[in-house]
């Protein structure tokens, strides 16, 4: 380009400090990657400048930064929030300021379905779908009894609720249901109880740090049950922190397996090439996609919040590295796919492709 392009500001918001920082940083890097790649594209009309804000995973701070972004008329749209409590707290703010945002990680259904705000969109799935698929798959494997452990945040509690619902429908039996604190270290007391109950499967609704602790303490106590989790543990650090113990863990994510989709490998390669300090984690690709959706919309209709909002609403069958994106009336991506993963030889492998599905290896719990 010979003449200077107009610069447009967009915002990324996520937890950059504190306990959930790993995921927040992965999201930020991925969104940043999207912007970098876009800016490197000579054909693009605009250069994008991404403001990055930290919501600390706290609702009140979230409202503050949302106000900051919303009140800044230079900012056209946002890639916002990993934590559900923050995302739900800020929807009013975005609506008030008319700032179109795409949620890139929070999974609470009410974020999109609890209101009619045209500004709010979400690329990742809600926790509903993955639990439905989850329950189907594992009951299909012949497991009969479960113990549910979930953290007491909105994330864990939501998963607990939906998984319980679907599992009971599918005929699974829940022997016990434990809530644990999000910063709890020691689970031996609970796990001793689990050992006594001797379930076929231990289901965990929560994020990687506790997932790691639970899995490793299960081993310590000699619990032989199968371990399965939610999207919160689908991360490299889960495997890295557990080593061989991670083997055989099942988990689900709303979306397509990234390395299978066109562009997925490109994303991973570029991510590596840009030498970010932290891995993208499970939700990085969503932040990447959200940022791209926004930039594409702006390229198309110009830097105008209303127009972008309208443009985003039209998103249908948009091909992305997490699969096709279609926003329903609530701005929710109607995710057609839920991918099941299992850890095999130190990698998250799509269930269907794994030795476990093929019967070459056996999961725990004797099935």
């Amino acid at each position, binding site marked *: 380009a010979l003449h200077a392009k107009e610069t447009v500001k967009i915002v990324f918001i996520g937890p*950059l*400090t*504190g306990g959930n*920082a790993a995921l927040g*940083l992965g999201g*930020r890097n991925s969104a940043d990657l999207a912007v970098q790649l876009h800016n490197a594209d000579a054909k693009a009309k605009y250069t994008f400048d991404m403001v*990055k*804000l*930290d919501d600390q*995973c*706290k*609702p*009140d*701070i979230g*409202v*503050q*930064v949302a*106000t*900051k972004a*919303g*009140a*800044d008329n230079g900012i056209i749209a946002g890639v916002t929030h990993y934590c*559900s*409590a923050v995302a*739900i*707290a*800020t929807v*009013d*703010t975005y609506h008030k*300021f008319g700032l179109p945002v795409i949620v890139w990680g929070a999974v*609470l259904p*009410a974020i999109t379905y609890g209101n009619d705000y045209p500004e709010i969109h979400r690329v990742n799935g809600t926790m509903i779908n993955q639990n439905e698929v989850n329950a189907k798959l594992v009951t299909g494997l012949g497991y009969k009894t479960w113990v549910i452990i979930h953290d*007491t*945040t*909105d994330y*864990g*509690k*939501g998963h607990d609720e939906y998984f319980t619902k679907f599992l009971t429908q599918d005929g699974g039996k829940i022997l016990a249901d434990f*809530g644990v*604190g999000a910063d709890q270290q020691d689970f031996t007391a609970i796990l001793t109880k689990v050992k006594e109950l001797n379930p076929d499967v231990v289901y965990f609704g929560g994020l990687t740090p506790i997932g790691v602790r639970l899995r490793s303490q299960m081993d310590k106590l000699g619990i032989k049950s199968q371990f399965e989790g939610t999207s919160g543990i689908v991360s490299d650090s889960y495997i890295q922190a557990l080593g061989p113990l991670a083997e055989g863990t099942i988990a689900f994510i709303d979306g397509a397996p990234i390395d299978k989709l066109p562009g997925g490998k490109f994303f991973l390669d570029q991510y590596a090439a840009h030498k970010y300090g932290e891995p993208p984690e499970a939700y990085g690709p969503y932040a990447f996609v959200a940022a791209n959706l926004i930039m594409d919309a702006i390229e198309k209709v110009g830097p105008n919040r209303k127009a972008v909002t309208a443009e985003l609403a039209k998103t249908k069958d948009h091909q992305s590295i997490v699969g096709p994106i279609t926003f329903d009336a609530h701005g929710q991506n109607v995710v057609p796919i839920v991918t099941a993963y299992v850890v095999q030889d130190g990698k998250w492998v799509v269930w269907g492709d794994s030795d476990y599905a093929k019967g070459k290896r056996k999961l725990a719990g004797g099935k």
Partner: protein
Amino acid sequence: MRVPLEADVRAPARASDLPVAALGIAAVAAWLWAFLVTDRVAILGALLAVAAIAFVLAQRSAVAKRYGLALARRPRMGVAFAAIGVLAVAAALHDQPYPLLMLCTVMLFVVACIGLDIQTGYCGIVNFAGAAFFGTGAYTAAVLAKQGVPHLFGIVCGAIVAALVGSLLILPVLRTRGYYAALVTIAFGILFSTFLEVNNALGGPQGLKLPGIDLFGWRFNRDVDIGGASASFYVNYVVLALALALGAYVFSRRVDRSWIGLTFDAVRLDETAAAAFGIGIARAKIIAFTLGNFLCGLAGAVYAMMQGFIAPNNFTFGESLILVSILILGGIGNPLGIVPAALIIIVVPQKLQFIQEYRFLLYGILVVLILLFRPEGLLPRPVRRYFPAPR
């Protein structure tokens, strides 16, 4: 700030007090405005440097002493000017919601911390459950607003319920002292937030939504039109928060500068001697604890309605620590110190957003440095004066 000598303060007010104080307030207001709006690293640094230099000068120079005296001799004028200053800042910021929101947040935290100061600074009851009482106010207001109770009533109820919940702790608080009392409140704070989280009755971890304040038909969440210019709806909250902050300040000053304040001091410094002269230890502690929790609850109720959303993890032990930090940084026992301390603890981390994940590191270092330079806090407690000079 050097403590004005009694003799200086007792000297009658001078005619020149007025312009001196006005000038001072104007300078502070200008600084505050710049601090709230700036987004630029360089300006932020410059502002902090200016504040630090002004602070050092204030301890040394005659001009600053003169200024301090002018206010000390005419406390009402000081309050009025502070109100004018904040309103002027709000007017200048009328179309910038974010700085206004920060201003409100700071003022509401000031109210809560003044409450804690009455407990800790005056009476010596250490309270590490500030966020729990703040949260009690918030949740009460939320629940009552849902029931359609008039908002003013709901807010007042929030404060009262916070004080009542505090009375659950009265017995252990009366029996323990120092770190032991601190543990009681820590335990209560953790218990409170865990309880909110695991219990679904109050929204559980997902929290509750609240409407904006509606006072006698005046809807706070609607942008205001003032003579054609449209101002952010946060201006409403600024006015309310300012009224509360000034009210709490005047209240705590009056409490301190009275026989009650003296009683609190006696209880804090030497319970045995206090008892020997007939001072009811339990009564003093109950009053201080209840008043403090009341203010925390009040601030919490308004804060919740301003935010429009509350969740348990806004009221955890970490948040209590933030309240206590403001108190300590300001200088325990001096309600005036709370204001700059709240600005530092609440606004500075947000101003550091540009360094993203490094901001808490820098912020922590900043606070440590401040404490090393001012171990007693920004504004240590002055010697008590019951009344300003005669006019």
